[in-house]
């Protein structure tokens, strides 16, 4: 199309050529956009590739039975032991403490916001919860180590400076916004007519909330709890700062211990040569972590499908 041809595409052949060009340009753009969307798939493949290939190298030197059954985790010592249970115990105990805080608090806040609070309170509370969820975890870690632990030591004088308890409590506070916000959405999706039915029978607000709304929203609640669990299992900095980094096979939250994540941080802080056994352990530990979160995610999706209420 020439610039001085003001009537533009008056010939059929010109128009066809122009259309063909437009068509190819469109196809090219679509391909570029598809490539961008495919980056997410590449990311997943990359994660699986890196974790599995380094873990394969690791398991060629360490038997998988030792990995699962040994009760010591001392990969960097001369007398090396690779018992992942040590790290898993720390991970599970700290997650349990966190969930004992986050699930009741999150659920109560969600019920309160969805059933009791008027819209002004709700509008004000949601951004506050979002801010809480936006605080960097390193700041929470600082808070756990230097504020919460000293406070807890006033109650439990024998509590050590690093403990799963204080890290877990703060981690629980961190998770509250996720659970509260998702549970609230689930409960608000319960149709008004169900509440009205309950009120018409003379139920109080609390009775309606507990016996009608919560059961109706149970799949959404379960999904929010599962998300909370995956957050807790994958959380790193709070534990690396406040729980100590000594591998310790314990089920007692009053003790210091290392989690899978804090072990990875600890090793990454040192200067490990690429390809050494120490380097490979963090990938084996990372693979374990990914598998644990994967199990919870599948469980979550299954729960969601099983208990979904159709209105």
């Amino acid at each position, binding site marked *: 199309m020439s610039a001085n041809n003001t009537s533009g595409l008056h010939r059929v052949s010109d128009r066809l050529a122009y259309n063909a060009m437009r068509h190819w340009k469109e196809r090219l753009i679509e391909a570029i956009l598809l490539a961008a969307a495919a980056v*997410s798939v590449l990311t997943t493949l990359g994660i699986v590739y890196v974790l599995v290939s380094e873990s394969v190298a690791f398991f060629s030197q360490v038997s998988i039975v030792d990995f699962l059954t040994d009760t010591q985790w001392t990969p960097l010592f001369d007398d090396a032991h690779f018992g992942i249970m040590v790290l898993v115990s720390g991970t599970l105990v700290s997650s349990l403490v966190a969930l004992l805080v986050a699930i009741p608090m999150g659920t109560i806040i969600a019920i309160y916001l969805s059933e009791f609070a008027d819209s002004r309170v709700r509008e004000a509370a949601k951004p506050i919860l979002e801010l809480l969820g936006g605080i960097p975890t390193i700041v929470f870690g600082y808070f756990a180590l230097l504020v919460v632990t000293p406070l807890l030591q006033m109650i439990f004088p024998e509590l050590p400076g690093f403990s799963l308890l204080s890290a877990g409590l703060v981690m629980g506070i961190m998770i509250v916004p996720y659970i509260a916000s998702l549970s609230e959405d689930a409960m608000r999706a319960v149709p008004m007519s169900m509440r009205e039915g309950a009120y018409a029978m003379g139920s109080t607000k609390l009775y309606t909330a507990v016996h009608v709304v919560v059961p109706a929203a149970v799949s959404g609640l379960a999904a929010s709890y599962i998300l909370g669990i995956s957050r807790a299992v994958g959380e790193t900095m709070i534990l690396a700062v406040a729980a100590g980094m000594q591998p310790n096979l314990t089920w007692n939250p009053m003790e210091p211990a290392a989690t899978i994540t804090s072990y990875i941080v600890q090793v990454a802080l040192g200067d490990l040569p690429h390809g050494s056994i120490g380097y490979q352990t963090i990938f084996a530990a*990372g693979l374990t972590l990914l598998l644990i979160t994967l199990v919870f995610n599948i469980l979550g999706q299954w729960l969601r499908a099983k208990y979904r209420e159709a209105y």
Partner: protein
Amino acid sequence: MKPLTTEEIRAVIARGKLKDNIFKATGIFCLSLALIVIVALIADMVIKGSERFTLDFFLNFASRRATQAGILSAWVGSLLVMLVTALAAVPLGVAAGLYLEEYAKRNWLTNVIEINISNLAAVPSIVYGLLALGIFVYQFGFGQSILSAGLTLALLILPIIIVSTREAIRAIPAMIREGSMAVGATRWQTCRYHIIPYAMPGILTGVIIGLARAIGETAPIITIGALTFIAFLPPAPMSTLGDGSTAGLFDWVMAPFTVMPIQIFNWTSRPDPAFEVNAAAAGFVLMAMVLSMNAVAIYLRYKMRKNIKW
């Protein structure tokens, strides 16, 4: 069952109301606990760190002496890493969101991409660090550089940007597309001149929330091996280097670096309590950055909800 007398009915109602009120109080208590934690966190850092809020703190490098240590390399590093993250994540995220909303046909590929994005959002951030260590640092040979860190965080926040882009695009009514197509625009022209501009506030909200998340992330950056003690800045474009040569325009992306969260981590993990003060002050600076970004995002969303009437 014997019918209740009026008094008994009143008692039942009163009991019900009491329970309601007790629950209401519990709810308010839990909510305020969340608020108290935020306030306590900020107050603690302000009180402990107050003596360090001087210009020197922002202009000094890290030091072995707590009172002379500053956060210059940390905040410059954070800013540069964020720049790389934004340059990588925004075009990718917006393009992916656009593809999934405007172009994608319902087929297995689209399904795979969608399921994948929601699963990626649940992957712990430290696993991204391991990905980056294996792929960016060793496979691609980017080393422990700003580039590696920026790309890692870009992958981490990509799901956030994609999801918010999709939501923003979905809110645009079909008549806008139909109008544009009716005058002969192609799909790309419709996206370029209508969809993207109208979805901009929503996309921006997602980008800011994503970057606020990225700036506070520590674990993936530690994993790729960011240094915890660094007393120099990445070479500015066109500056003269130590050996007399001139730095290229993009030399800084390959430079070693540290970021704010790592500086804080380093200071909190030192036994000398003098560094606690620094950690508190740096923590406050980081919080201020993150919270103000979040506040902008929340404001944008609020404003968007109010203004748009299709």
